[in-house]
């Protein structure tokens, strides 16, 4: 019961802050809404007994990535919303169409398999379980992801230090 109430509140927070991220004019407030969104998502992970995923969500997304985002926004002092406006007007209807398509696909996927839903075993998200599956069943995707990240890092350095 308590879990369901908490889920309802957090789902509401997630929806509202997600909308505000794109609707708010001030970039810093936009980033802050995203931080609140990540927090609410971490609480949802906790409700699924995925403590490790919840902690990593806060450390990596809220604690590191969003701090860097804020750093960049503040360093560039993105205050004027006029500079952020899109120049190509035809992009707008296409974006709306794609967003609608995404919602339909997502909702279809969720509702089609609603009957098959099963309760989560309560040790699924502990460090031990995540570690075990990452290094046995999912070791190739895991290692490939790390190579992907390495490529991104090398690419970033090449782009930043082109004139060295």
């Amino acid at each position, binding site marked *: 019961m308590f879990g369901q109430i908490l889920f309802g509140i957090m789902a509401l927070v997630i929806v509202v802050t997600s909308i505000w991220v794109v609707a708010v004019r001030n970039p810093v407030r936009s980033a*802050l809404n995203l*931080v609140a969104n990540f927090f609410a998502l971490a609480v949802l992970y906790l409700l699924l007994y995925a403590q490790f995923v*919840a902690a990593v969500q806060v*450390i990596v997304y809220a*604690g590191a990535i969003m701090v*860097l985002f804020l750093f960049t926004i*503040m*360093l560039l002092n993105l205050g004027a919303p006029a500079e952020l406006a899109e120049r190509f007007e035809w992009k707008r209807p296409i974006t709306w169409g794609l967003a609608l398509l995404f919602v339909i696909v997502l909702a279809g996927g969720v509702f089609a398999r609603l009957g098959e839903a099963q309760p989560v075993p309560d040790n699924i998200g502990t460090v031990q379980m995540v570690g075990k599956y990452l290094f046995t069943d999912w070791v190739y995707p895991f290692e490939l992801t790390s190579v992907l990240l390495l490529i991104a890092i090398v690419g970033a350095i090449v782009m930043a230090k082109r004139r060295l």
Partner: protein
Amino acid sequence: METLLNNPWVVIPLRVLIVIGFVLTMVPGLVWIERRLLALMQIRKGPNRVGPAGLLQPVADGIKLFFKEDVIPERVDRFIYFLAPAGFLIPVLCAPAVIPWGPDDRLTPIADVNIGILFLLAMTSLTVYGIVLAGWSSNNKYSLLGGLRASAQTISYELAMGLSIVSVVLLTGSLSMRDMVLNQQGSLGMLNWHVFRFFPLGLIATGIFLVAMLAETNRAPFDLPEAESELIAGYHTEYSSMKFAMFFMGEYASMITISAVMVTLFFGGWLPPLPFAPFTWIPGPLWFLIKLGVFIYFFIWVRATLPRLRYDMLMKLGWLRLLPTALVNLFLIAIILWWQQ
């Protein structure tokens, strides 16, 4: 008494009261100790007028802060300006929830969650939001620079700190802070602590944590976010009255928390340094407090001794010295553990 301690409706508020109450009541004492010790090290007298040996000075300061006018500059982003001090203090006070302050698991920690140290890392990494937002919302260039410095510094030193924590996690095989303390128990006393494990690898990890903890709490010689000679007071330049006091309290509370983490991870938590007669008479929480005091003294001692680093030196130390050392150290510890199996 026993039935009371087994009732969750009694014991959980009691735990919260013990931990938060301890941290918050330590803050004024810490301010007094710091001012007196700094004065001693600089051959001054320090605060000695209010009460015996100036002991009531923090009370006087508190009263002064309460009754000061709360000046709000005209062109600040009001919502974020009000949010920032709370955003700094709340994670700082949440962080000690997973630290075991004594052997009795009914009184502390507040929650012995199986992600223990990760929760602590998450909370300490959130404190930077308070600083950054304070700097930005104040609409003052010095504040903004202080906030920017704080965010860059915290992210840089969190990595080295995280890697030295990972070496402890490897040694323990668990993320729970209680397990980390119990893993340091043994017949050799302090030689079983993580500092002296795989000499000198444990010592190196401790050293990295020691440097990173100074940087994470924005204390001298890493106090660039509030470097008064360049940035007036950095991120809290525009704050006055109790909003300033919240930043102040948060800084000292995070000093206590991070020292407690240091004691728990590397110096055996509540365990006595030698596991026989005269040492075991002193109860565990008292040992914890003694060790905590040593690190608090270290913070103050370093502040009185070392000059502030230049910004590029700070970044170089974090990324080019501490991070590679921590990585190699972690690698060596992992190899030894693998070889021992």
